């Protein structure tokens, strides 16, 4: 496979950092000798590399007071006892939870069984509603009588207009 500028540029950083195998290093070197564009890029990258290597170790140098303050914080946290739950308390808690669950669960099942029973019909209730004077009863031939309680009736002087509310 032909070694192109694209291949060379992908390996330039590793070449500058001396992280390539001797064979790959030789290949990049040969290309740099032959290609002016790649050589110009190599020089730029090399200068940036030198700048960063010189300047980055100086960024964020901690002061003595800063380090001393951090050490105090670390000491305080290391010497603090760990918040762990004692084993006997944990066992006691688990035993209590199991006991409560063994009491509650059967009761819950019984309640669900009671809810599952069909509801008994209530004919007396519907007949009482239909006999009431202010109730409109709707009864069909097949369906049982169903009662609706109308909205509270207004007094004659409170009603805004009787004709407006009258249905045609």
């Amino acid at each position, binding site marked *: 496979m032909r070694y192109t500028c694209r291949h060379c540029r*992908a390996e*330039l*950083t*590793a070449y*500058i*950092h001396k*992280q390539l195998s001797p064979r790959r290093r030789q290949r990049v070197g040969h290309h740099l000798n032959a290609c002016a564009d790649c050589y110009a890029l190599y020089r*730029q*990258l090399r*200068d*940036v*590399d*030198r*700048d*960063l*290597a*010189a*300047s*980055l*170790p*100086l*960024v*964020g*140098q*901690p*002061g003595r007071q*800063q*380090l001393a*303050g*951090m*050490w105090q*914080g*670390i*000491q305080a*946290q*290391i010497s603090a006892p760990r918040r762990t739950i004692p084993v006997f308390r944990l066992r006691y808690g688990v035993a209590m939870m199991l006991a409560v669950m063994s009491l509650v669960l059967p009761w819950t099942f019984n309640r669900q069984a009671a809810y599952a029973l069909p509801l008994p019909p209530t004919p007396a209730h519907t007949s009482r509603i239909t006999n009431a004077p202010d109730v409109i009863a709707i009864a069909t031939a097949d369906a049982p009588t169903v009662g609706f309680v109308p909205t509270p009736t207004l007094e004659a002087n409170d009603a805004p207009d009787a004709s407006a509310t009258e249905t045609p």
Partner: protein
Amino acid sequence: MTTDHDNPTHECISEWIASSLRGDQSAYQALYEAFAPGLYRLCYGILLNVDDAEDVSQEAFVYAFKNLKRYDPSKSAFKTWLYTIAICRCRNLYRRQRPPLLDIASIWGNPLAAPHSETPEAMYARQDARQQLEHALCRLKPALREAVVLRYGHGLTYREIAEVMECPPKTAESRLRLAHDALRILLEPAGIGLLEELLSY
């Protein structure tokens, strides 16, 4: 402890870890003094905020000291293990509050240590250069910024970067390449060689 805390040897670190596990407080302190400046610089380089960097460094040390038993020297170096913990905490933090904020107060209020003979013009130029660098870092994606800080700020190899970032070495390499190329474009207005000239004054 008569060893140099700036460059502790593997034997020293192993000894401190063993003493710490036995409950020796001075060994904890020795570990802290050896690794705290580097860890703080790492957190600051990624988060670009003094308070966040302090909090994360502190959290990372507390976690490391409480879980020192879990550290396996056969798997990785102590520094790598510590940096992995710190990077995870940094990620948690900037997931909660993105985009990362630049701490302007820290740039103006906490400048780099200046030589006594430095003129005000040189000081301002140096601060400006640092500001440009931090702005450029801030504009990188978090993953690329992590790779750059680990490589240039701490001199880690590609393999170590991959270990700390918990990714394959090829991914670490490609992240570094992308970051390097992005920084070439972002730092172009500062002029080639300007930062080095100013910061090595």
